């Protein structure tokens, strides 16, 4: 019997030690936290709930926030990666409220389901700034403003570019066969870009969209779907790919099939996002045009926060400046001037 008692005590001690060590993992970074001057009233604490790290664009976006919201600039950034799960973001926002951050910046994974946490934030008196993707809520007063890209405009821009390009090639009246690699179904970029492009497509009877298929914004899936397109349809003229990662996969699939793409190739490739690697691919003559989706939202959000601090009003919806690139431009010069 004594053995059992002793055993229980030993186990208790082990469990205590383990408990400490396992909760010690988060504590390890404690030094960084201690240095945070808690009473420094000038420092603005910003809680940022990011979607994840699924693409190059997303990483550039996170980096933009990390580089702007530094302690030198008078900020303390609490960065939270939601690993692509909405419930993680809900948790993160609730945590920010408890931590009494000064501002919450939210990049929502999905557009919906934010009412209750936004009400909680409002009750706690914390302004919320939505970035990148949009939210649909009953009462627009629940968030201060939204900053991001106009995905519909990007889609329209792509359509108009193609219009002009075909015209200049003398194919304006030809039958044009197209396929689309869609993003994750239901995400704002997918909806916006598809609809924007479709609005231009409506004007052209000779443009034929053969199939829409989702490539989930990933390279591997994009390649697989493109392989399927190439085997199902002959003579595809245009490939619309709703982000760069899928484009990389698609270009690979096209080359494996013994076809060529780009300005001098068999197919016209349109892509979105315009990350550096995509511009490089464009320089190599594999992509015709890329429509920028500007990830550098950090400085814009910082401006907004400064204005809010001065009690100024800000516009409810703010679009970030965006342009497009095509293979006729001086790409190496453009790339030198870009941060991502």
């Amino acid at each position: 019997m004594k053995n059992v008692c002793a055993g229980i005590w030993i186990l208790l001690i082990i469990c205590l030690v383990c408990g400490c060590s396992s909760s010690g993992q988060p504590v390890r970074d404690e030094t960084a936290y201690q240095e945070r001057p808690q009473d420094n009233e000038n420092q603005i604490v910003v809680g940022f709930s990011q979607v994840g790290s699924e693409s190059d664009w997303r990483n550039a976006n996170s980096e933009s926030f990390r580089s702007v919201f530094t302690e030198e600039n008078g900020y303390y950034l609490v960065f939270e990666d939601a690993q692509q799960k909405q419930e993680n973001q809900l948790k993160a926002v609730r945590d920010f409220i408890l931590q009494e951050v000064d501002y919450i910046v939210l990049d929502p994974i999905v557009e919906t389901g934010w009412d209750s946490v936004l009400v909680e934030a409002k009750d706690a008196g914390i302004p919320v700034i939505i970035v990148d993707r949009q939210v649909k809520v009953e009462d627009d007063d629940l968030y201060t403003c939204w900053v991001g890209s106009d995905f519909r405009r990007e889609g329209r821009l792509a359509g108009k570019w193609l219009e002009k390009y075909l015209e200049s090639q003398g194919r304006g009246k030809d039958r044009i066969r197209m396929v689309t690699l869609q993003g994750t179904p239901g995400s704002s970029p997918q909806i916006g870009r598809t609809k924007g492009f479709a609005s231009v497509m409506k004007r052209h009877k000779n443009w034929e969209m053969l199939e829409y298929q989702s490539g989930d914004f990933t390279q591997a899936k994009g390649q697989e779907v493109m392989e399927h397109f190439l085997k199902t349809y002959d003579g595809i003229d245009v490939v619309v790919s709703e982000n760069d990662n899928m484009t990389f996969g698609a270009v690979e699939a096209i080359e494996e099939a013994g076809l060529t793409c780009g300005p001098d190739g068999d197919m016209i490739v349109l892509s979105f996002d315009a990350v550096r690697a995509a511009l490089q691919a464009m320089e190599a003559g594999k992509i015709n045009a890329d429509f920028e989706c500007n990830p550098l939202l950090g400085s814009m959000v910082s401006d907004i926060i400064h204005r809010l601090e001065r009690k100024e009003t800000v516009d409810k919806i703010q679009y970030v400046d965006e342009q497009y690139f095509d293979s006729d431009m001086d790409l190496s010069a453009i790339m030198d001037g870009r941060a991502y």
Partner: protein
Amino acid sequence: MSKIKKITGQPLFLPIFCMLLVMAVNIFYDLGSGRFAFNFFTVSIRNGVLYGRLIDILNRGSEIAILAIGMTLVVSASAGTDISVGSVMSLTASLCCMLLAGYGVASTNTLAVPLIVGVLAGILLACVCGAFNGFLVAYLNVQPMVATLILFSAARAIGLLLCNNLIVYVRNDAFKFFGGYLGFIPTPIVIAAICIAVVSLVLKRTALGMYIQSVGINKDASRIAGLNSEKIIFLCYIVCGLMAGIAGIVASSRISSADSNNIGLNYELDAILAVALGGNSLGGGKFNLAGSIIGAYTIQAITTTLFALGVSSDQAPVYKAIIVIIIVAIQAPPFNAWVKRLSAKKALAKGGA
């Protein structure tokens, strides 16, 4: 009647039957859409490499086939499944790309260390993961699913840490080789073939295959018969880890990057499914490696066919689920007993008439 029974009684009947069924669907589809009936099977050489839907299936199915080898052994020896293989794939890819690119570098065209170091380190890490699982299962008697649940959730996360939460690109032709082409054949097919050949040779030439089965059928009896059951189970898990590592390298070379979030996602399920489709009991014991491999390619064939039929990739799992349930229900002993009773009744009725 007895002939049919003989055919259906074959161990490879079920997987091959499924494969044929999938292909038949393709033929009908091609006919229906007014194309050449054997459009699906045409293999040609384009741009100096093999090209066609069949090649696609063989190529894309390589990872699942490689995983299925390891999974078959694990299922047979320990009567449980290794659900960590997908995560281990991702971890392998992350370590390999991290070493090749250097820590914290997001994109590189030149290799920081020789290619072989990165690849071997990745595969070695995968073996260590396998050994960890094996240790828990074999020596601590932990249920395989729970034991591998640890790495299922941890391995992907560790991979993310290794890559500093970035997608690491290694845009280098040498690294591209594993997912590219060897002559005119896609390299993944060659790698899968080598893995299959080596493992089946080892199993054939040595008594290891027998040992694994006997451990799976009855662990304690095997120990009494003089087998080191623990060691054999441990070994199976290491092989499973090794296979996951190889599959991880192939998958990451295909996209020339380490995308920790997406590499090997849900592959564990496909691999387990392949084993079940191959006519292997998930309860351990007798196994049939050939069946598992055919099962793996069948799964890929189903995926490719669903693509060809224009089923959205989100909705495809419904069909997969129905196929799985039908297949395993046919295999279930109570169902077989019921069918036997039914046929016996028929025979009785015949005799009566």
